[in-house]
């Protein structure tokens, strides 16, 4: 089977790229796929702590590219799932230690033995971004309902398209249904209308996310978590399952009535 290489990007920092990579990757692995996560944020390594494998790192992605180790030596196996691996970023190197061509080769190599290669893209639109998208055939753009995140997402979508990466999906993260009920937040529909790329899912804002990163255990392991379920559904949709998008109906009947009256 030909694997998929996915880059998770956003332009703006702090919108939840790393959390998204960790959770989608874990959810796909739980479904039985062979998954490798690549932290492409060279110099600002983070995916390892979110996955809880930070104290098992010996080699990193730059070591693979420079030939300091074999590819398998830099791949860290997940604590729970035997079919989930992480290739950490180098912490003490610069973004230009790697070039897009090398990342493309690495991706192609990984796709030979994995169903999903998921890249965690750094914030920004410079070298690190170009590296991260080089080997991807699919892009997931993460945004939040904030104006700054949406504007950056729009810019990134433009850059992806001009790099001929046109298979783009959107995730709206940190949807705050309480704020939405009050009318003090853009709706999912508003955001999708502005960015005009297909929606892959909506993740509600949740304190559970911080708790799970504190522990280094992705939320999708946690049954009954709304945000975890949202990530699980996103992973299922990536796999081609037809699961309806969670609508803003979370706002409840009263919220609907209120919004109807005030609109």
């Amino acid at each position, binding site marked *: 089977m030909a694997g998929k290489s996915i880059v998770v990007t956003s332009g703006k920092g702090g919108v939840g790229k790393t959390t998204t990579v960790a959770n989608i990757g874990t959810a796909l692995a739980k479904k039985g796929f062979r998954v490798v996560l690549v932290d492409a944020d060279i110099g600002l390594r983070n995916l390892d702590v979110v996955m809880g494998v930070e104290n098992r790192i010996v080699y990193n992605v730059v070591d693979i590219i420079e030939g300091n180790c074999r590819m398998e030596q830099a791949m860290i196996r997940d604590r729970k799932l035997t079919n989930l691996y992480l290739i950490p970023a180098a912490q003490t190197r610069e973004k230009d230690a790697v070039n897009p061509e090398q990342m493309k080769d690495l991706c192609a190599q990984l796709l030979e033995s994995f169903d999903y290669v998921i890249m965690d893209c750094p914030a920004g639109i410079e070298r690190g971004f170009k590296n991260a998208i080089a080997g991807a055939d699919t892009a997931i753009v993460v945004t939040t309902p904030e*104006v700054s995140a*949406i504007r950056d997402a*729009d810019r990134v979508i433009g850059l992806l398209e001009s790099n001929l990466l046109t298979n783009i999906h959107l995730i709206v993260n940190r949807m705050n249904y309480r704020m*939405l009920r009050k009318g003090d*937040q*853009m709706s999912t529909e508003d955001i999708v209308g*502005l960015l005009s790329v297909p929606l892959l899912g909506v993740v509600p804002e949740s304190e559970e996310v911080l708790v799970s990163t504190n522990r280094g255990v992705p939320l999708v392991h946690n049954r009954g978590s709304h945000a975890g379920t949202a990530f699980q559904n996103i992973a299922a949709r990536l796999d081609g399952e037809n699961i309806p998008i969670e609508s803003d109906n979370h706002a409840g009947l009263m919220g609907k009535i*209120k919004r109807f009256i005030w609109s």
Partner: protein
Amino acid sequence: MFRAIQRFFRERNSGKVAHQRMQVVLMHDRLDITPDVMEALKNDILGVLSRYMDIDQESMSVDLEQGKDYTALISNVHIKRVYRRPMTANP
């Protein structure tokens, strides 16, 4: 209920405000056309029109105009006279 009424009279919901602001901002971002490109576009339009009519080149203008939910390319052309037959592309 009282608070809802209070809100109603206070201001528009900030979510709506954000949405409208973003519509304008993104349109501008996407249409980030440099003056050079704009000048080239103007010259091309001028070239095509000149085959059909005599145009006052000095007074011609090409601008992007931002509406509430659209962006329009507005060109103002003063026609001096119209030819009976189109001129060839390279006169």
